[in-house]
């Protein structure tokens, strides 16, 4: 099966340098993961063994499938008939082998017919949509509403008891499952930019489908086929069990039916075909699951208690700290800082047991009424630093060094491995709040904006709903929303991005926090909206005298708002100081490089950085 799929992918009309290479690169890792999964390797082994037995049936079987020895019916196993004989004196082992041949082939036929109909139809319907999709959806609706078993019985009555005909019919009946699967997968990539790029390159639709679209449906089709083949075996055997099969052919279903008739005389006649079916269907289902697991990128990292030991010296104090009930007092002389981060290190355990540090030895502090900008490029660890103050790091993150204190108390004491959620949940939303980057994805589309503002206030401040409502309306006015009543009762999709960000800012200040952490609060907004939001942030910060940590990559935003700046690169703090010093007289080379990348004040059409030796971007 996978072979034919592979060749189909290779046979893309557009010539390429290494045809098929692309498929194998992805596949090899999937296959390796499949083979590393015990379920996968067991099910593969079972299916391979059964297929091998089926293929070699003419060699392995001691008798013909219908050779009957009237003198020896319902015999117990002996050296000639190793599994005994049935009521007509036919050898059970031989019939089981020939039955495997027929049963597996007919299941393949069924899946093949279903794929041949469902896959192309699904590809076309998903890619083009329009009339073809409408018509095929209609056809699929009809097919799915047909009572399958009755159709199969009718077909048997009309065309006789042929396994092949009934499996072709069943293939047609079940083809909608492939159609739907394919159509959905295709629709999800139809508008990807690489498909557009291929169109601009002038690729024909056929080439686009073969090259760019088919690869998406390949894996789900393989999984689906495993399941469908199992179902086909079950349905076919079911029909034959009812006595509707072809009695001249040996299949597992026919054997089952035969065994059932003689269940009191020789129960093992029932056992062997049932066992073969259970093994095959089970193998197919498990294989499908294993492939799915292999595709779902399961690079799971085992929970490692020992991880701490890798840090060497810090392990011992960590254990000592964790056993202690109370939190140590902060260093004397630093209590007045609103937030103080000392030598913070954040890391993620890797599959090989090492810890990848994303924040390394970062120290800074923020006072009340002060705005600190953390600037850096993606991957510099600026968001990770902000999240560790909020205690919102992913579960597998570890604080590998340092401490964080908030208003004179540790939230992360020296030597602790994780952020203490109990300590932080008392602060989060009340004294520390957060303004996210993507305003739209941070409002729940199922609730009104008013509800999302009122609920936290009722919980945190313990005020009544009515009071919270009044407060929310006032807050919305404060953040410059012209018609607060209307916004209050609106759903998130009814407001613009800039408006949504104002709502989130209103939410962030609703519980009168001391510290606001804003993670790229204007990056997703238009420039004109950004200017309004920056004005709003400045005005609120001055009025409420709160401390703000502003994470951004934009030096213009820094210049607009911040009092002090910390520049981060690769998890380290390269430079920190008052905003004028950093922006005008940067000391570190990296800060200078970043500032040199700014376009403002540059001669148009001049090279920005290429005078330096060109590194790869």
């Amino acid at each position, binding site marked *: 099966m996978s072979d034919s799929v592979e060749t189909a992918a290779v046979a893309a009309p*557009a*010539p*390429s*340098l*290494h045809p098929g*290479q*692309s498929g194998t690169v*992805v596949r090899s890792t999937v296959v390796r993961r499949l083979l590393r999964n015990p379920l996968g390797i067991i099910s593969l082994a079972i299916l391979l063994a059964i297929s091998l037995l089926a293929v070699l049936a003419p060699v392995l079987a001691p008798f013909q499938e219908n050779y009957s020895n009237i003198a020896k019916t319902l015999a117990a196993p002996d050296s000639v008939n190793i599994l005994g004989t049935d009521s007509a004196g036919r050898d059970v082992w031989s019939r089981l082998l020939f039955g495997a041949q027929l049963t597996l082939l007919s299941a393949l036929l069924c899946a093949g017919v279903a794929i041949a109909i469902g896959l192309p139809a699904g590809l076309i319907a998903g890619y083009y949509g329009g009339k073809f999709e409408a018509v095929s959806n209609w056809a699929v609706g009809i097919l799915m509403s047909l009572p399958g078993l009755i159709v199969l019985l009718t077909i048997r009555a009309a065309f006789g008891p042929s396994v092949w005909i009934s499996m072709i019919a069943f293939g047609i009946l079940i083809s909608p499952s492939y159609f739907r699967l394919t159509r959905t997968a295709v629709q999800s990539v139809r508008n990807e*930019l*690489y498909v*557009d*790029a291929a*169109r*601009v*390159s*002038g*690729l*024909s*639709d056929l080439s686009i489908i073969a*090259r*760019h679209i088919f*690869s998406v449906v390949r894996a789900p089709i393989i999984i689906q086929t495993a399941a469908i083949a199992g179902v086909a075996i079950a349905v076919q055997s079911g029909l034959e069990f009812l006595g509707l099969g072809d009695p001249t052919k040996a299949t597992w279903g026919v054997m089952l039916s035969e065994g059932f008739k003689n269940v009191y005389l020789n129960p093992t006649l029932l056992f062997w075909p049932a066992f073969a079916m259970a093994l095959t269907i089970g193998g197919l289902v498990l294989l499908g699951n294993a492939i799915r697991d292999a595709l779902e990128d399961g690079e799971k990292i085992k929970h490692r208690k020992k991880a701490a030991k890798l840090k060497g010296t810090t392990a011992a104090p960590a254990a000592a700290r964790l056993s202690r009930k109370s939190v140590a007092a902060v260093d004397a002389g630093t209590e007045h800082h609103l937030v103080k981060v000392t030598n913070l290190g954040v890391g993620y355990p890797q599959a090989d047991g090492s810890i990848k540090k994303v924040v390394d030895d970062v120290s800074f502090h923020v006072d009340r009424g002060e705005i600190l900008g953390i600037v850096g*490029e*993606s991957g510099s660890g600026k968001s990770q630093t902000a999240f560790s103050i909020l205690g919102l790091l992913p579960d597998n993150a570890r604080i590998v060094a340092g401490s964080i204190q908030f208003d004179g108390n540790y939230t992360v004491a020296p030597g602790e491995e994780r952020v203490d959620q109990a300590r932080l949940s008392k602060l989060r939303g009340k004294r520390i709040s957060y303004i996210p980057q993507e305003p739209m994805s941070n409002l729940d589309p199922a609730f009104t904006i008013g509800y999302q503002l009122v609920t936290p206030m009722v919980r945190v401040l313990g005020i009544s709903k009515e009071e919270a409502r009044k407060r929310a309306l006032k807050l919305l006015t404060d953040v410059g929303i012209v018609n607060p009543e209307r916004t209050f009762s609106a759903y998130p999709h009814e407001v613009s991005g800039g408006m949504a960000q104002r709502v989130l800012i209103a939410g962030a200040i609703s519980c009168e926090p001391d510290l606001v952490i804003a993670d790229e609060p204007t990056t997703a907004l*238009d*420039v*004109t*909206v950004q*200017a309004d939001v*920056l*004005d709003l942030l400045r005005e609120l910060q001055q009025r409420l005298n709160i401390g703000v940590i502003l994470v951004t*990559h934009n*030096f*213009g*935003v*820094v*210049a*607009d708002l911040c009092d002090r700046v910390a520049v981060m690169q690769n998890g380290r703090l390269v430079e920190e100081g008052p*905003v*004028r010093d950093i*922006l*005008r007289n940067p000391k570190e080379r990296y800060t200078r*490089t*970043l*500032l*040199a*990348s*700014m*376009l403002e*004040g*540059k001669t*148009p*059409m001049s*090279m*920005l*950085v*290429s005078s330096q030796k*060109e590194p*790869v*971007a």
Partner: protein
Amino acid sequence: MSTVEVREIAPLLTVENLIVEYPSKRFRAKPFRALTDINISIGQGETLGLVGESGSGKTTLGRAVLGLAPVTGGKVIFEGRDISHATRKQRRILSRDLQVVFQDPYTSLNPALEIGDILAEPLGVQGMEQAAAKRRVKELLDQVRLPSDAIHRLPREFSGGQRQRVAIARALALSPKLIVCDEPVSALDLSTQARVLDLFLQIQKDTGVSYLFVSHDLDVVRHISHRVAVMYRGEIVEQGPAEVVTRDPEHPYTQRLLLASPVPDPDRQEQRRADRHRLMESQRHQHEQAGAVA
């Protein structure tokens, strides 16, 4: 490469009274008009910067030129031929001269294909031999300064900036005359953006290619463009030489846009902020008096 020189030659691309409408999903509802009466032209070796906010239709204009958005009215003329309703076959021939670089380098490259295959795709469509295509791919990687071992690697092994280089290399593969660049640096870090902009300028210097450069960032557009067109709500509200439009704009929206972009110095930014507030105030004033919508 002054604009005066450029104007003397017949323009490479002309868009005349272009209208793009998307049919509404609802029955018998009016179609959604994304672009209204667009007129632009781009000469050989020239860059036209297209700036505007999200939803202003700047991306749609680029897509209409490429044949990815439906042209309801008006004309797109490329080298004297009307291509507004070009067939797929005509597009295939056009693709030698007309190419694209998209915004998002993460979805514009097929994650399942190797870089070499991605770059060879447009060459293969034009029927280039495998050996020649292979040589060309090496050349392209060199041109965008990627290591030649990139051929056998997958997009996910590269950073955003490197992926955008691959996308640029793909656009360059057939030595086109015009590249539509749809926010090609918006998803990149500041220093990466600077390097990629350098690359765009270098390529233009070396090959004389023209760009239709779409961006929301006035600074980027000012840096890379000869001429700039400003879009607002599906229309072009202002068009002219880059220096003029981006330093001394006439249209109220462009004026707002210019002063909204913050500068990296606290004192100058404070000045700019004050200027912006004054401008907003006066525009509000005018608006109230005239009742006109800016």
